[in-house]
């Protein structure tokens, strides 16, 4: 257990340095004059001018050598200072805290809802493989997964906002605003994971140990609960951990469509405005989130799967 945590901590530190460095290099490689892009982010399209760009340049010292700016960033990072946004002038930590609070709500409920959809559907389809529900689930999953998250979101808006008028189209402020973005992400995640759960279930139902359990006298329900579910939860959870990359990708589109003030939206704006401290901070936090969730998955595997404890 301690070994898992220590190795994850090492990964986290290495990730922080490499993600920040890569972001720094890549942003500098983007075409166009940085001072002009930052001035556009700050003062808007109509007010961007060479005078504004020069003022930005003088204020931020952008003409200092890149290496010097990099070393300053690295020094600040070691002391835990992520700097201030070049566009808004607010501390990056403050902005990230704000954005993360929104994205975490979205991510948490999306993962939970995805699990609540994927596990029951997958278990049912696995137990009743090659039947009508199984085939229907395959077609639905393929349909949902082949849509860009954006289209799926629009489709849900048309059904639940326009036709049924149950939920607001976009915005934030209370629980009802979160339902459609959460559902969009959850459906997109569950579309793949329910198939993984279904295949694991099918494998377990056809296994020798399941037949043995039945032979020794357990009912189907008892054998399913004791021998199939534990064998399905482990790979299912591990897969959902990997899927988080997809979640981060989906968050950028979903937040823009539903006007949700999270980190995905912040990231896309930071790219357009060349807001390097915001970009580095966002990439860092997303990377750490990724490591943290994978650590949680590892820990849960450790407790759910007796084999890992035996190995250790």
């Amino acid at each position, binding site marked *: 257990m301690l070994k898992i945590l220590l190795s994850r901590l090492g990964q986290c530190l290495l990730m922080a340095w490499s993600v920040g460095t890569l972001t720094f290099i890549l942003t500098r490689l983007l075409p166009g004059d940085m001072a002009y892009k930052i001035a556009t982010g700050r003062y808007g399209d109509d007010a961007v001018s060479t005078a504004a760009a020069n003022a930005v340049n003088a204020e931020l010292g952008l003409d200092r050598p890149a290496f010097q700016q990099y070393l300053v960033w690295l020094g600040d990072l070691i002391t835990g200072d992520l700097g201030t946004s070049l566009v808004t002038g607010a501390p990056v930590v403050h902005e990230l805290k704000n954005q993360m609070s929104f994205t975490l709500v979205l991510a948490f409920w999306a993962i939970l809802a995805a699990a609540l959809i994927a596990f029951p559907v997958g278990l049912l389809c696995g137990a009743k493989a090659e039947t009508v529900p199984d085939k229907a689930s395959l077609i639905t999953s393929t349909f949902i997964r082949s849509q860009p998250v954006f289209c799926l979101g629009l489709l849900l808006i048309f059904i639940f906002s326009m036709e049924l008028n149950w*939920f607001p189209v*976009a*915005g*934030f402020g209370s629980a009802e605003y979160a339902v459609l973005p959460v559902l969009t992400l959850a459906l997109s995640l569950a579309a793949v994971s329910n198939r993984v759960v279904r295949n694991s279930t099918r494998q377990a139902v056809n296994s020798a140990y399941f037949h043995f359990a039945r032979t020794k006298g357990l009912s189907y329900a008892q054998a399913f609960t004791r021998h199939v579910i534990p064998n399905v939860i482990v790979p299912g959870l591990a897969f959902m951990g990997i899927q988080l990359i997809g979640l981060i990708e989906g968050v950028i589109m979903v937040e823009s469509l*539903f006007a949700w003030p999270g980190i995905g939206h912040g990231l896309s704006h930071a790219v357009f405005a060349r807001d390097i401290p915001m970009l580095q901070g966002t990439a860092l936090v997303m990377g750490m989130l990724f490591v943290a969730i994978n650590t949680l998955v590892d820990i849960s595997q450790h407790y759910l799967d007796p084999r890992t404890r035996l190995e250790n």
Partner: protein
Amino acid sequence: MTAPRQIIFLFLLSSFILACTPAPKDTTLHISGPFEPVNLDPASAGYMYTRMQIIETLVDVDNDGNLIPGLATSWKSNADLTRWTFHLRPGVTFHDGTLMDAESVRKSLAVALGKPAPFPVDIVTNIEIVDPLTVSFTLKSPYRPFPSLLSNYTTAILSPASFGKFNRMKALIGTGPYEITDFIPPHNIKAKRFEKYRNGPATIESVDYVTGHRSETRALMVRTGQADIVFNLDPPATEMLKQDPDVNVHTRFIPRTTLVKLNSGNEKLSDVRVRQALSLAIDRQAIAEGILHVKGAEANQLFGPSMGTWHDASLPPLATNIEKAKTLLNEAGWKLRDDGIRYRDGKPLSLSMITYANRPELITIATAIQAQWREAGVELAVHMENASAIPSGHSDGTLETALLARNFANIPDPLGILLADFTSVEGGEWGPMNWSNDRVFSIVNQLASGKPDDNYYVLQKELISTLNEDMPLIPVAFYVQQSATSSRVRNFSFDPYERSFRIDQMRFQSK
């Protein structure tokens, strides 16, 4: 899952959905637009706070672009236009309860003029307090449109308590009919009415602005009643909303013109015949009707119909004439070859055009122009960029052509823009480039020093027609602003100068 468990699961799911059904309509006015206020600083996001009516400026602007009293009741200059005296409105209260006086105006403007603004901030050399309700500005050179600069959002008057250490923004304390209560940059501004507003409190109690990043989202928000007013809709969204009986669509010309900026110093564009040919090859009517879905949006001059005497309503449309364009290009030495492109001295007539993504129609218009110029034998490569590529390309000289939507309302008196852009070969970053016309330069200088008499209007007309002949910029379309309101909103009116949402004039329909 067994049947009873399935039932429990479905029950829980449906109760969750029902619990989340939106609350009934409230007394807050919900607005959505694409504008993203990044911080509290009027230099960055002041355009949003004047629209929300939280902050106000010394000078205001009416629907026709005339300057009218704002926080100042009157102003006058000395004979040589270098010293301007403003008399402040008495009894104006800031949202923190303090009274506006000459010192608070001096402080606000001293801070504002130290930051970038869409006009030359270094024009003011001194701000002097004459008496508690009179302020005087000394300029480094004569400048007739000076009062119009003080209508720009960057020059809003704030309470001294708004500024913290090093004059950084600590809070946004203005004088408007609404005061800010909550701010989540760049997504949300909440405001409530200011009870001690000098003209009495507004009817609508509170306002909630949410940034709706996409035109589709905003259109759906007003359609479902989630938003009461949405701004900046694109043509497809507008067409959809026109079918809805519960939504009113408002279409209005604003002082913004979509135009092609040309680098007249470029060897391919320095010949006026080439510039005229490029203008003749553009089918403006097709762009107005096919892309913008607005009849009559085709531009025949630089300034649009909402710009008072700067627009000459007697001018005929700029007709499309491919044959004449071809003749002019031939005369300029550009001969057609078999590949359909014109060449001179072995070099092709190929140009690059920069445009930007924030105004989605620009890229569509750019590709239409690409096809239309191609018919005349001109090859065009379109580059989608960030808006800053235009001033940046102007300043380093690499820009050939650019398609942009120029805002002529930043300083409501176009004379300010003309003085900045049309009096030197350098031109303006959003205006002409490496272009020189002694007659135009002289007219602009005469207008700047003259008085609005009969000769003034004659000069204005001569200026407009000279610009149309020499084509330093090619006007394409006058800008139309599309907004929509839900049926419960009464007294909505759109400010063509986009200075105010005019919330204080609105009310909800009584049931």
